[in-house]
């Protein structure tokens, strides 16, 4: 078991956003986490990343409880978050984006992804090395964001709405590559998405949240049978 | 006894000035470091009117307050367009500009040498020369100021100002004019600072730019912060505590040139210590 969340509660101030959330993730598995705005998907990701303290419940990574671990510690262990809409350093060039993140995160004898691997995976980034990242198209920015998230040795990817603002054909291409990365390197992923159709295509398992709790946990084909309204 | 009366009268004038700063910085959340300049304008205008015309004292104070209202509205207006940190820069600029005018416009202000011989206030033929007598005037000034502040803060206007500090957008969404409220607050703060300036000039009978420079603005801020921002009690307490400090320093035998620096250093230290350990000051609310 790569990631195991049991009975997790978290929130901000007087507001409890998620309660009693439990889910598991295997290496190489893509879990689509769906649900409406405010259902608690991002909050779940933030709690896993250590950006928000868990009020109760435990998060285990590789079998070890990581409740007391710092954000940096979790990144080092291989938990990577691609935050919604802000996954790049917009004022830096593409190459500088990759260089700064690589300097802190690519280490050890055989890292899974070096900068060269990122340029190979996304040739368009190679062509645009000197371009200011914030001036690229949405699709290219999102490729860079994904590239930054996987630099080094990622083991568990947390993607927060990576398709937002992208044209449908771009989403398909990006998700295919993402699928490929997870499968060929055994990286587990939690994919928070509002583009249900695209997410269902690549997901191995689907979890639907509603009002801070999990209302469905099963296979994509079964998810299609549920009520549309559970999704938003 | 003179010594004590002087201390009280000065503290009372500074209460009036502290109310002005508290209203803008604490209540509305407009970070102004130029209130000392407005204070100065009030002082110089009163001095000018009393020295060069036969304007009676109450009228001179009123004119000074009125002009300071206009001035403060003008210097606060950028805060509507320029947000947060940028307004601080604007405000610093206004303060430095004020100091430049007080120091360099020698004809009007006497320049760096200051303006001696400001006549003591005369009301109904009575001249308030002695500190004990003047104490009556400054007490009335402070009393009126506190009363105004209290009346405003308990009225819906006070609630509106506090709401603006928290969320301007939400205030606009309720159909209220943020512009109008901010202008009103700036006007009030101007009136407080202007009349404080008038009292100050006539009490000391000598004014020079050093009372109205950036250090003075920082001193004002220290009074409000130490006393406690956002409350009337804090604005009243602050000046009495801080003005006692130079008196205490005077008891220790240190050279005068050194004392000024030491005083200002202690004010700065107080600002840091309070921000680190007690941002609400002695009697205020959380900043």
């Amino acid at each position, binding site marked *: 078991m790569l990631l195991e969340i049991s009975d997790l509660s978290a929130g901000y101030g007087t507001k409890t956003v998620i309660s009693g959330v439990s889910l598991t993730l295997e290496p190489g598995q893509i879990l689509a986490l769906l649900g409406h705005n405010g259902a608690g998907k991002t909050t779940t990701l933030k709690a896993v990343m250590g950006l928000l303290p868990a009020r109760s419940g435990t998060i285990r990574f590789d079998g070890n409880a990581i409740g007391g671990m710092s954000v940096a510690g979790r990144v080092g262990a291989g938990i990577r978050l691609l935050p919604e809409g802000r996954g790049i350093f917009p004022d830096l060039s593409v190459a500088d984006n990759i260089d700064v993140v690589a300097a802190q995160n690519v280490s050890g004898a055989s890292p899974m992804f070096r900068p060269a691997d990122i340029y190979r995976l996304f040739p368009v980034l190679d062509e645009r090395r000197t371009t200011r990242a914030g001036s690229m198209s949405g699709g290219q920015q999102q490729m860079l964001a994904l590239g930054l998230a996987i630099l080094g040795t990622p083991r568990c990817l947390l993607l927060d709405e990576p398709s937002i603002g992208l044209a449908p054909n771009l989403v398909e291409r990006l998700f295919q590559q993402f699928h490929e990365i997870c499968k060929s390197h055994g990286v587990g992923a939690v994919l928070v998405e509002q583009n249900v159709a695209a997410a269902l295509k690549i997901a191995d398992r689907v979890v639907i949240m509603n009002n801070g709790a999990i209302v469905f946990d099963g296979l994509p084909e079964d998810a299609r049978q549920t009520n*549309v309204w559970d999704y938003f | 006894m003179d010594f004590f009366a002087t201390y009280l009268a000065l503290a009372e004038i500074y209460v009036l000035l502290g109310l002005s700063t508290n209203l803008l910085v604490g209540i509305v959340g407009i970070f102004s470091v130029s209130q000392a300049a407005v204070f100065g304008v009030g002082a110089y205008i009163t001095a000018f009117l009393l020295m060069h015309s036969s304007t009676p004292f109450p009228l001179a104070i009123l004119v000074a307050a009125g002009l300071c209202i206009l001035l403060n509205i003008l210097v606060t207006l950028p805060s509507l367009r320029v947000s947060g940190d940028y307004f601080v820069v604007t405000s610093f600029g206004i303060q430095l500009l004020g100091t430049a005018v007080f120091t360099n416009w020698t004809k009007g202000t006497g320049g760096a040498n200051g303006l001696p011989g400001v006549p003591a206030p005369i009301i109904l033929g009575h001249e308030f020369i002695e500190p004990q007598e003047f104490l009556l005037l400054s007490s009335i000034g402070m009393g009126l100021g506190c009363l105004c502040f209290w*009346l*405003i803060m308990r009225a*819906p206007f006070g609630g509106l100002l*506090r709401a603006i500090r928290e969320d301007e957008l939400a205030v606009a969404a*309720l159909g209220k004019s943020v512009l109008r409220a901010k202008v009103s607050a700036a006007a009030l703060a101007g009136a407080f600072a202007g009349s404080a300036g008038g009292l100050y000039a006539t009490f000391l009978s000598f004014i020079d730019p050093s009372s109205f420079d950036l250090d003075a603005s920082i001193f004002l801020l220290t009074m409000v912060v130490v006393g406690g921002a956002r409350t009337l009690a804090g604005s009243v307490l602050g000046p009495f505590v801080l003005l006692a400090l130079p008196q205490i320093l005077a008891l220790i035998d240190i050279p005068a040139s050194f004392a000024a620096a030491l005083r200002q250093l202690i004010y700065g230290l107080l600002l840091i210590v309070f921000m680190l350990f007690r941002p609400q000051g002695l009697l205020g609310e959380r900043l």
Partner: protein
Amino acid sequence: MSPYLDVTGLNKRFGGLQALSDCSFKVAQGRITCLVGPNGAGKTTIFNAITGFLTPDTGHVAFRGASLDGLSPQRVVRHGIARTFQNLRLFADLTARDNVVAGMPGHFGEEPLGAIFRPFRTSRALAGKRAAALEVLANVGLADRADALVRNLSYGEQKLLCIARILATSAELLLLDEPTSGLSGAALTEVMALLRRLQAEGKTLLVVEHNTRVVQQIADEVLFLHQGHLMAQGSPAEIIADPKLAEIYFGGAL
């Protein structure tokens, strides 16, 4: 006769993203209309366009026959439309009652001169407003929390207070942005009952809502938005049964 709220041809682009694309709809008086759709569908953008928080690239909004185009938020409220925000935007350092008082339309003592020179009249006006505020709070079930600071209220109470605050503006058309999100159990039931009661009192409601159960129970009319397009409009039963939605959702081409 012109419709109560008439929205025609709204378009809005944010950079490369078409947030609203030719949205037109009407809201009938005295009804509860729910705006539904996934994140980023443009629901809040529509609210912002109606209430003057943003100017659409093209399109018009008219309320009771009067055009609202180009009006500031402050002026839109005076036409009788008020809104809540997804992130509440309450005044956290003020009491519940003072939040409601702040929502009441211009009254005596809101100007410094009145407050200073007519203290007794201000007192009377304020006492009146505070009593009225208590009534509004009682209407949403918060009377016993009137003097609590907002920061000490529970999340459910804060959501109720948001509604109380815009009720205080005496607006007739209320735009509620996710009034039930983050609520469950008793708090949820309470908000739903409140919305119904408001309708019975003659208010018209336009509500962004995610919770299917809530939509089915309160909506007279549902507007379904997807990627800035108004995809469907109808009764809750019609919308829920619409196979088109399942197709949009699970992989049909748009």
